[in-house]
């Protein structure tokens, strides 16, 4: 009889440790979110390199467990494996490493060949400051509004870096929002691109860009770094690494380092970043009204960035000579979702004229957007940190 009672006690204790006994409705909602991310990544191929790690991270982060038992498995439990991996997000050292890889894979030739395109990358940053104003009006504190606003830059690492400094408690919501909308760029941008352009504008053919010398390519990251360091020192961790990676690529003598930065290193960090950001969305901390507001403002910021980029090109065209006019379909590429935003310009351009290839032109504002959003982050950090 005693043995039977002891067995029942043990079974009861075991039951209290299981996920079933600790599950709440929120856990299942978040697990559903994770499954949707994985579904979108596999079937629609929306940013699979990000959505698979994030989606699976959401599943891992929302497995219910007995928190009182001190099992040290949760991402917010100090000393747990997940918590140690999450430090790269919290302390903000994953994003600069991602920027190193981005720099090593980015060709700035399109921008150097047609430098006026850099201004489109500046215009699209209205999305960041528009969202910042909206967030403040919706009752967020200035530092929180700054973190939410940066979603408009369409740059996951920049959003994570800025939020980890300004509002760490919003990290999960901001990161998930930024990456979700980046994945949905092919869905969000085209309707506004069609709405804001005339058929005549969509048919504008741009001049083939000039050839860029190797010396220019090598000097660009060095001079870019110096300009950044002196003007916006707070943007240095991101832009410094971006230009460093680019110099590794363009110098021609550090091929192995460049290949590591744009290959194994960026892949490793992407896995760790995506997975831990996903795991940080525990239902108890994520499912709040605040997160829904962040998502709503994030969507608005993407729309504002897309529209201001296109409208800027239209206004710019008023002062440009006929042979130098810019196709406004590349205005959307001012956001830094590289290269998806540029690909959308190309796809829409080809839809209206099968001989109008816009990709190389759109890459100019696209890489300018990377620089622009990092500068915007630096400015916000300078004011609000």
């Amino acid at each position, binding site marked *: 009889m005693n043995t039977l009672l002891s067995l029942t006690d043990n079974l009861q204790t075991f039951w209290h440790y299981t996920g079933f006994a600790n599950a709440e409705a929120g856990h299942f909602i978040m697990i559903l979110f994770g499954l949707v991310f994985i579904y979108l990544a596999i079937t629609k191929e929306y940013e699979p390199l990000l959505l698979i790690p994030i989606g699976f991270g959401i599943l891992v982060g929302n497995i219910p467990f007995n928190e009182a038992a001190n099992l040290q498995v949760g991402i917010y439990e100090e000393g747990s494996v997940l918590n140690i991996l999450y430090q790269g997000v919290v302390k903000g050292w994953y994003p600069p490493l991602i920027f190193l890889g981005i720099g090593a894979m980015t060709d700035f030739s399109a921008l*150097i060949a047609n*430098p*006026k395109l*850099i*201004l489109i990358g500046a215009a699209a940053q209205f999305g960041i400051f528009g969202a910042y104003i909206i967030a403040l009006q919706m009752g967020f504190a200035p530092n929180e509004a700054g973190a939410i606003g940066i979603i408009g830059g369409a740059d996951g690492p920049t959003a994570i870096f800025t939020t980890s400094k300004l509002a760490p408690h919003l990290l999960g919501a901001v990161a998930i929002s930024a990456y979700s909308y980046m994945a949905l760029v092919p869905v969000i941008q085209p309707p506004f691109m069609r709405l804001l352009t005339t058929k005549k504008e969509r048919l504008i053919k741009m001049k083939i860009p000039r050839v860029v010398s190797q010396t220019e390519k090598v000097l660009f990251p060095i001079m870019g770094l110096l300009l950044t360091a002196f003007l*916006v020192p707070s943007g240095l961790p991101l832009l410094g690494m971006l230009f460093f990676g680019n110099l590794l690529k363009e110098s021609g003598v550090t091929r192995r380092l460049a290949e590591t930065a744009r290959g194994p290193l960026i892949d490793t960090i992407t896995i760790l970043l995506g997975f831990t950001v996903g795991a940080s969305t525990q239902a108890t901390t994520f499912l709040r009204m605040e997160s829904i507001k962040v998502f709503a403002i994030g969507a608005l910021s993407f729309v504002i960035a897309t529209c201001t980029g296109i409208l800027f090109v239209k206004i710019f065209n008023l002062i440009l000579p006929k042979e130098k006019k810019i196709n406004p379909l590349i205005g959307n590429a001012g956001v830094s979702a590289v290269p998806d935003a540029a690909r959308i310009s190309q796809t829409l351009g080809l839809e209206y004229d099968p001989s109008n290839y816009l990709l190389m032109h759109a890459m100019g504002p696209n890489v300018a957007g990377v620089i*622009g959003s990092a500068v915007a982050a630096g*400015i916000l950090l300078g004011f609000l940190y």
Partner: protein
Amino acid sequence: MTPTVQTTLLIAGIGIVGIFIFMVLFYLMIIALDKYLPYQEEKPAEVYLSETEETEEEEIA
């Protein structure tokens, strides 16, 4: 207009103007690069060799 709104607009204004100033400086930097270090088409090896020989002959003469 409340002080919060004023501060918000000030930061947003400085931010967007700051980005444009930064980008214009970047633009000028690229223009300077193009002006002082323009692209020069690489000469085929034969042309380079013949030019070098000519220079050497001139120097000997």
